[in-house]
């Protein structure tokens, strides 16, 4: 697992209060991990903080699963 993937998973475990074993690539924040709309916004914000980037709203809306978050960050974090 990449360093980015590990950091993303740690944030999700912390913010959503879920078990690490649940945080799999295909898990949806809202359908599988119990996030509501505010939790999802907070997750994006935490990713921005952790990786020191800015994720535009239209792109943030496309990030709905753990895997999508990891791929987006792996492609965009310098």
């Amino acid at each position: 697992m990449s360093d980015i993937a590990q950091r993303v998973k740690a944030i999700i475990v912390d913010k959503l209060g879920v078990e690490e074993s649940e945080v799999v690539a295909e898990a949806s924040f809202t359908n599988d991990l119990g996030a509501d709309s505010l939790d999802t916004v907070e997750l994006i914000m935490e990713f921005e903080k952790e990786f020191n980037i800015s994720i535009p709203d239209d792109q943030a809306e496309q990030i709905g699963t753990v895997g999508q978050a990891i791929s987006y960050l792996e492609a965009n974090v310098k």
Partner: protein
Amino acid sequence: MNLKRVVVTGIGALTPIGNNVEEYWQGLTNGVSGAAPITKFDASLFKTQFACELKNFDIESHIDKKEARKMDPFTQYAMIATDEAMLDSGLDLEKINLNRAGVIWGSGIGGLKTFQDEVMYFAQGDGTPRFNPFFIPKMIADISTGYISIKYGFKGPNFVTVSACASGTNAIIDAFNYIRLGKMDVTICGGSEAAVTQAGIGGFNAMKALSQRNDSPETASRPFDKDREGFVLGEGAGALILEEYEHAKARGAKIYAEVVGGGMSADAHHITAPHPEGEGATNVMKSALEDANMKPEDIDYINVHGTSTPLGDISEVKAIQKVFGDHAYKLNISSTKSMTGHLLGAAGAIEAIAGILAIKHQEVPPTINHFTDDEEFDNKLNFTFNKPQKRAVNAILSNTFGFGGHNCSIILKKI
């Protein structure tokens, strides 16, 4: 109009001298001070470096970690005190009409820590507006009643009263009014506050409102003592279940006391200084007595606002003497803030509970930390200095006054 009778059927307390009602009463009657050096942040640069913080308190043993994270401490405290009061009341949520069950809570400030942390985070950045989506819903004072209603499914009236240090009493009086008007059967009411933060201590310090007795925190809150020099900030929550009397009787509920009268007034004088002759305080006690249809002689114990400030204590005692005349010498007066510190919007709630417990145990908790008499006070008055006193307690009056000139008094009676 035929008003309903209103009784207290459950209580919960989370205070600097005890994390539940039983511990709170032990602390009150043992004369325990809740003051100690601040542990929540490094206070070494602050004029006041102590407060009455909650102790031995682990939030996660009360609230699920994921939920707790979305709540400011003032809401966490509200949930914990409410849980105790609801359990104590024995209310069966399946058997009551939830549309006639409400939540009215008091908080002087709301989520001060959340506000402070979020604004500081923004201020330390480069100006890019990045705010946590939970910033507003964690901070707003009314979120406490929102959470309580969600947990218990109470769908009746739901709001927060904001009248600074009178907020808790305000909430109880509002609940009392809705129930006696027949608008609700049951109300969770009370107050919570969590202002022991840099912004809270710094802000009150700037007003010269807080004691700065850093070399002896436990003796700093000394209402009516000659050397009092400010209040001690406290935190926590108090919750009461108010219930329409017939509703309570029908389900065989344990009844602590009856709420018989409430008074509200404004000083209309100064934003923070009390009226020098205690005009608003006089009016509010009179109006509470009138509302209760009681005479001054009917009151056995006054739990005073008595914050240990030089001026506030004097004007309140002047008001008591005006309202109670010679009977002022026969009743017990005490400021339990000498032990708990000043819980701002939660003060009225935990002090009403102190009054209820005084009725239950027929014992008046003391005003601790009395060292030197102040000639400003009539020495024939009984301030219940330093030790609790056993006595017949049939009816109590509790005063709370807030910055802004808000005054609230409530009267509770043995049933």
